C-alpha cells in the first residue's frame, strides 16, 4: 500500500486510477487501510480549495473536504445542521467530509441523501462544469474504472427553510447508523408544491429519489390526504437491503410511516 500526497487537486486527479482511492477525512478509507482491504494506492491532497465554503448566487459551493463539524458551525448552513448532526459522533463529525459521504455505502451516507433532495450538483476535479449528484450516485454503484474526485458540491439554498425536512431513523440514540434516512425538499408556489424532491437513504444501493412520492406531491398542497397518498407509495421503486439493523421487509413497512411523520411535522411548521 502506498500513500501519495499532492499539493493540488488537479495533480491528485491525474494520479487517480483503478488501483487508487482518494482519502479525505479518513473515516471510510482508513478503516480499510487498517483492515488491509484498501486499494493499493491512497491518494491525498492538501489543496486549500477542498475546504472552502463560498456563497454563490442561489446557494453555496462547498469544498468536498468540508467536514460535518464545519457545516454545523457555519451560520448560513443552518438548514443543513440537522443533517450534519445526524452523522456519527463528535469525533466522526470532526473528520468526515461531505465528499466522502457521497461515496459512503450503507449504512453511512446520510448527508448525501439530503444533498440529493436539495438537488445538489457536483464538480469533479480535473473536469469542467457541474453535474447532478443524481448522476454521480447512479454511476457510483457501477464497479470498475477510476473513481472520480469530487472537488466541490453546489448546494442550492432552499428558498424557504421550512421547505426542507430531514429525518434519520436509527436504533441507537443519539449516535446510531441508519435504518433509513429521508430528506424532502418541497418548494412551494402559491401553496402548491413545485419541483418536489424526496430522497431515501438505506433503501437501496445508494441514496435514491422516491419518484412515485414526488409525483404524488407535485402540484398539490401539503394536506392530510396528500401526505397519506405519499406515505402509501413511500417505498415504491426502492430496493431496501436486509442487514443487522433491519430487514428489507421492515424497512419497506415503516418507510411510509416515517415519511408521513416527517411531512406532518413540516406541515405543522
Amino acid at each position, binding site marked *: 500500500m502506498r500513500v501519495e500526497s499532492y499539493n493540488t487537486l488537479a495533480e491528485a486527479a491525474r494520479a487517480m486510477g483503478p488501483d487508487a482511492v482518494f482519502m479525505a477525512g479518513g473515516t471510510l478509507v482508513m478503516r480499510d487501510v487498517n483492515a488491509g482491504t484498501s486499494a493499493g494506492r491512497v491518494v491525498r491532497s492538501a489543496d486549500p480549495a477542498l475546504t472552502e465554503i463560498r456563497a454563490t448566487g442561489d446557494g453555496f459551493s462547498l469544498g468536498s473536504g468540508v467536514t460535518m463539524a464545519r457545516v454545523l458551525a457555519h451560520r448560513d448552513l443552518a438548514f443543513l445542521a440537522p443533517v450534519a448532526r445526524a452523522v456519527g459522533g463528535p469525533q466522526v463529525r470532526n473528520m468526515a467530509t461531505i465528499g466522502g459521504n457521497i461515496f459512503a455505502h450503507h*449504512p453511512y451516507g446520510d448527508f448525501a441523501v439530503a444533498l440529493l433532495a436539495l438537488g445538489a450538483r457536483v464538480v469533479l476535479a480535473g473536469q469542467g462544469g457541474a453535474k447532478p449528484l443524481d448522476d454521480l450516485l447512479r454511476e457510483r454503484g457501477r464497479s470498475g474504472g477510476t473513481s472520480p474526485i469530487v472537488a466541490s458540491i453546489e448546494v442550492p439554498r432552499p428558498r424557504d427553510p421550512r421547505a426542507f425536512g430531514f429525518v434519520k431513523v436509527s*436504533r*441507537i*440514540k*443519539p*449516535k*446510531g*447508523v441508519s435504518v433509513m434516512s429521508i430528506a424532502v425538499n418541497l418548494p412551494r408556489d402559491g401553496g402548491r408544491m413545485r419541483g418536489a424532491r424526496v430522497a431515501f437513504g438505506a433503501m437501496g444501493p445508494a441514496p435514491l429519489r422516491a419518484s412515485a412520492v414526488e409525483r404524488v406531491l407535485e402540484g398539490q398542497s401539503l394536506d392530510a390526504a396528500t401526505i397519506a397518498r405519499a406515505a402509501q407509495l413511500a417505498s415504491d421503486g426502492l430496493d431496501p437491503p*436486509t*442487514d*443487522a*439493523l*433491519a*430487514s428489507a*421487509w*421492515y424497512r419497506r*413497512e*415503516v418507510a411510509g*410511516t*416515517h415519511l408521513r*411523520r416527517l411531512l406532518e411535522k413540516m406541515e405543522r411548521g
Partner: protein
Amino acid sequence: MAMHRGRGFASINYPIGMNLGGDPSQALVHSNPDGKFTVALSSIDLGQGMKSVTRQIAAETLGIPVADVYVDTADSDTGPHCMGSFASRGTHRVGNAVIQAAQEARAVMLEAAAEELEVDASDLVTDGRGNIHVKGAPSRSITTMAACQAAQFKQGRTVSGRGIFLIPLSEVDPETGEMTPVSCFAHAAMLVEVEVDDETGEVSVLDMQSAYELGRALNPKLVEQQLIGGAWMGMSHVLWETTEPYYPDRSHGPVDFNHYLMPGPGDLAPHHISVLERPAPDGPFGGKGPGEMCANPVLPAVANAVYDAVGVRIDELPITPEKVLRGIRANGGARPKMRLARAR
C-alpha cells in the same frame, strides 16, 4: 399513530460461585517493615473492582486503614493460584481467602504488639486507624507500624499470612440431577415501564424500579456501579444485542459497533435501585456477588412490559422493532393489557 405504555415485572435469584464448588482461590498477605501491607493475588480485575474490594476486606480483617493496604495482582510468579474471575466467584471466594490470610497476618502482628506491650495478645484490639491497644485501655497502645517493625527487626517474625478458600467439589447424580449447587444466592426483582410505538414497533424503556439483595454491600459505590451497568446490559440484551440477527441463519452477523447494537447514552432510563442486604453465612463479611445477576431481571421484565403495552408476546430475543411490528400486525393492532397499573 399511537404510543402505548406498559409495565412488566420479573424476579430472580442467582447462584454465587462455580456451580459445584471445587474452585479454590488463594491469597498471601505480608507487611512491609513500616506496617503497610501487600495482598498478593493472581485474581483478575476486569473492572468489577476485585483489587478494591479485596483491599477493603484485608484492611477490615487486619484492623488497619484501607490506605495501608495495596493489592497486587496478577502475576503467576508472585500471586498464588486463583481459579479466575467468573461465575460471580471473585468477591465470595477470593474475599474469603483474603480474610484467612489477613487473619493469620493479624495474629502475628498482635503477638508482636503483645510482646512489646508485655500483655497477652488476646487482650489486644485494633482501632482501624493504625493503632493496637489493650482492650478497654486505649492509652496502652502501640502503632501497627511499631508492631510490624518490632516483629521484623527485633523479634524475627514475618508478619504474613496465607489463605485459601475452597468449597469442595460436589457431584451430580446423573439420573435425578441431585447436586449441591453453590452455597449462597443473590436476589432481585424488577419493574420496568416501556413505551411501544405501534406503527414502527420501536420500544423505549422509560423507567426501572428494582430491588437487589446481594448480601452485605462491601462497598456501596462498587455495588452501585455493578447494578447500574448491569441493568443497562440487561436492557441492551433484551432490546438490541445479538451476534446473529437472523439466528439460526448466520448471515448479517455484525462486525463493528455500528452494527452490533447496544443502547447509547441517549437510550438510558431512570433506574431506581433499592439494595437489601441479607448477609451470606459463608460470604466474606456476608458479601455475595452482584456482578452477574444484575442484568438478568431486566430481560424478562421488558418482554413482559411489551406484552402489557401492546399485547404482543416476544419470546425470542432480542425484541426488535420488526418482531414487535409483526406481532401487532398479526393481532390486528395493539391490544394493551395494563395488568400492572399503578394503584390509585
